[in-house]
């Protein structure tokens, strides 16, 4: 088995809402005919635009879900229980979904690990047929803060099908170590809730700033007390930030265990090095939580992915001009920011509005349409052009 790293910024597979996506309908001549008539009736819209008004969660619709409950886990963390639309295809424990939620009118997409039972049965207070994610409000974390503090039951959210390779193999390995920190517990609690009966020897090291900030504290302790999981808590205020050398004491046989690790980037980087130095890098399976953070600056490189062009541009040159100078076939219009004829999807990076100085950072993995005539590079950008 090879070490797998799941980069959450580039989900593979899964469905996502596409511009003008048609509803895939049932096959068969009659159904196809009916669909053609429906499309002729709905043009220039598509039948789904009308059906979505009546039942946004129906089978065949873009996947959506309705928030059923938001249950606090700690002061800063909450579990969001969502009833998914009928197109929900299920998941493998450890996988994550992307959720698109409107905050102050703007849609934001984020990825969260699933913590409910994959067979759809009720568990840990999550009603049957619902999906659940748990998130911790972090400073500057627009979406997590919104979910924990402001979101209300009844809210309709956009969903993607589950994806990700941070899962247990079949059959499950004999000896397992879960190493988690903070909200990195979420994919692992998803595995524990689903796979615990199949797991015979589980060690779990979880790190948290303090005892009352341990998410799922009671559930984890119960497993420990019942002898199902050997839990070690590393509390920053008691033990200091986890020193990986401490593993030798906490889980002496950690080198023999298939290890699933999820937590902040610093821990992941340190652990990857530690496992490699020990000569067992294949035993480590990593889930990375945060997408790359872009620090806005002045100017930078612009990548036009489909034209396979990379150009350097300063902080005062509109991306449109930079692209045209490099011979990229850029859509364009008024060149003063009013006609929206130059809008191109940005897949990463940051741009600065030359009129106002306002910086827009690409923060999720959803393409962000950008007006190229009035924006300059503020951090290496990639465009879908």
């Amino acid at each position: 088995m090879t070490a797998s790293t799941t980069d959450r910024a580039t989900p593979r597979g899964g469905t996502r809402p596409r511009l003008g996506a048609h509803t895939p309908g049932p096959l068969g001549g009659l159904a196809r005919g009916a669909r053609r008539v429906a499309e002729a009736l709905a043009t220039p819209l598509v039948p789904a635009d009308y059906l979505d008004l009546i039942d946004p969660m129906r089978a065949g619709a873009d996947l959506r879900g309705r928030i059923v409950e938001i249950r606090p886990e700690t002061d800063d963390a909450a579990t969001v229980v969502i009833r998914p639309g009928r197109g929900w295809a299920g998941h493998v424990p450890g996988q994550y979904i992307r959720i698109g939620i409107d905050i102050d009118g703007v849609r934001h997409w984020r990825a969260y690990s699933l913590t409910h039972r994959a067979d759809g049965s009720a568990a840990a207070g999550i009603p049957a047929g619902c999906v659940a994610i748990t998130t911790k409000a972090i400073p500057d974390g627009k979406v997590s803060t919104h979910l924990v503090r402001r979101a209300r039951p009844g809210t309709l959210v956009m969903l993607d099908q589950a994806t990700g390779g941070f899962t247990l193999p079949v059959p499950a390995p004999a000896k397992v170590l879960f190493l988690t920190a903070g909200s990195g517990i979420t994919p692992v609690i998803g595995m524990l809730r689903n796979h615990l009966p199949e797991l015979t020897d589980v060690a779990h090291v979880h790190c948290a700033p303090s005892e009352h900030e341990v998410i799922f504290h009671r559930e984890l302790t119960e497993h420990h007390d019942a002898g199902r999981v050997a839990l070690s808590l590393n509390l920053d205020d008691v033990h200091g930030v986890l020193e990986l050398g401490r593993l030798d004491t906490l889980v002496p046989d950690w080198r023999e265990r298939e290890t699933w690790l999820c937590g902040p980037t610093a821990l992941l980087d340190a652990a990857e090095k530690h496992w490699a130095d020990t000569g067992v890098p294949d035993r480590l399976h990593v889930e990375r939580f945060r997408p790359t953070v872009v620090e806005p600056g002045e100017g930078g490189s612009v990548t036009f992915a489909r034209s396979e062009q990379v150009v350097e541009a300063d902080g005062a040159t509109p991306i449109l001009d930079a692209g045209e100078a490099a011979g990229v076939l850029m859509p364009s219009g008024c060149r003063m920011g009013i006609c929206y004829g130059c809008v191109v999807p940005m897949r990463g990076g940051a741009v600065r509005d030359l009129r106002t100085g306002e910086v827009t950072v690409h923060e999720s993995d959803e393409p962000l349409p950008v007006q190229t005539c009035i924006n300059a590079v503020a951090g290496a950008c990639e465009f879908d052009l």
Partner: protein
Amino acid sequence: MTLAPQRADHASTKPQGINPRLRVTSDEPRPQRAALTGTGRPNPAAHLSPDDIEGIGHELDALRQEVMDSRGDRDAAYIRKVIRTQRYLEMGSRALLLFSNVKVKGFRPAWWLGTAGLSVSKILENMEIGHNVMHGQWDWMRDPKIHSTAWEWDNASPASQWKHSHNEIHHTFTNVLGRDNDLGYGILRVDEDQPWSLFYLFQPIWHVGNALVFEYSIAAYDLELGGYLAKRERMSEEEKATFRANRNEVLQKIKRQATKDYVVHPALSAVSGSSRTTLTANVVANLVRNLWTNTVIICGHFPPGISTFEKTSIDGETRGEWYLRQMLGSGNISGTKAMHVITGNLSHQIEHHLFPDMPSNRYAEIAPRIRDLMQRNDLPYVTGSLWKQAASVYLKVVQLSLPNKVEGERRRDVVRRELGKAWRSKKLGRRY
């Protein structure tokens, strides 16, 4: 969306270096000339110094920023509500029309209600929703279903072509003679400074005809059909190929639109023997929509008191001067809140032209501040009721069908002379 090499207009709009319109203050020393030179008539901004205009630019930039920063849930809820209302209204009206032939005491209630509902639905869809979404007013929500790059509207003109001729040409070159084809759409003389020709003698007829088939006129106009017919001898193969591609796009769109309104919906109504009445309902609804949109749109730039500008007056135009041109080149329609919604908030034409990508529900909120700014700067804020403004345009269309008055020659003599020339050459003369 336009790909750069496809449009001839493009080369001339491309600035060297940074577009001066991006900034209120240009790094280059600005020419000390009057900001705007009206053509022949007094310049309503003659009393403003370059510094005054720069000040206006800063004030408007700040106002724009203030509103854009405060966009949020309530705005998103507004547009979704309008879209939801329009779609339910359309579905309800279409459902009624399935029984449009059913008579109650010699009267067809379903026809009347369905036709009225469908007309209002089409007007909302074209104006408050389609026009504004295609302007990018709602792009900030990052909802791929309500986005300028994805929207297609219930109109003969394909969104892509509309966005080019409207968002790009009209909104950038508003009221610049020879640059903004919206000034009379190439078939009307709505400004004294547009040269007269015999063609315009019949413009009251053109005007009414244009209003009745407005959606097709817009499609032909966005396609630049007139320009193609006039210039095709001189066009390169590439330009002709582009035209043909665009033409096919329009024909496909018209086919889909006509199939929906005039074939499929009437066919469904056959269940109650209402095919013919459903057909008439769709014809009437499209006609009502055409007349209404035309009536609203002519009030935006053609009523008296609104300025037009010379081609040369916009060379090196700064952002402040551009703002000034938008304010002087547009006129509003006064009325109730319902009136503003049913005009797609084009009743706030001045505010819309200053900030074409601002959510339309905000125009009414900033209107008093724009009016105040213009009054403080002694600029005319043109506004009036729909009927007053529309009537003034109809009157203008009649008056300007004749040549301007000149010393020493009666207008009827000019017309008679031109008629004689036309009779001999079998041509109606140039349009501008």
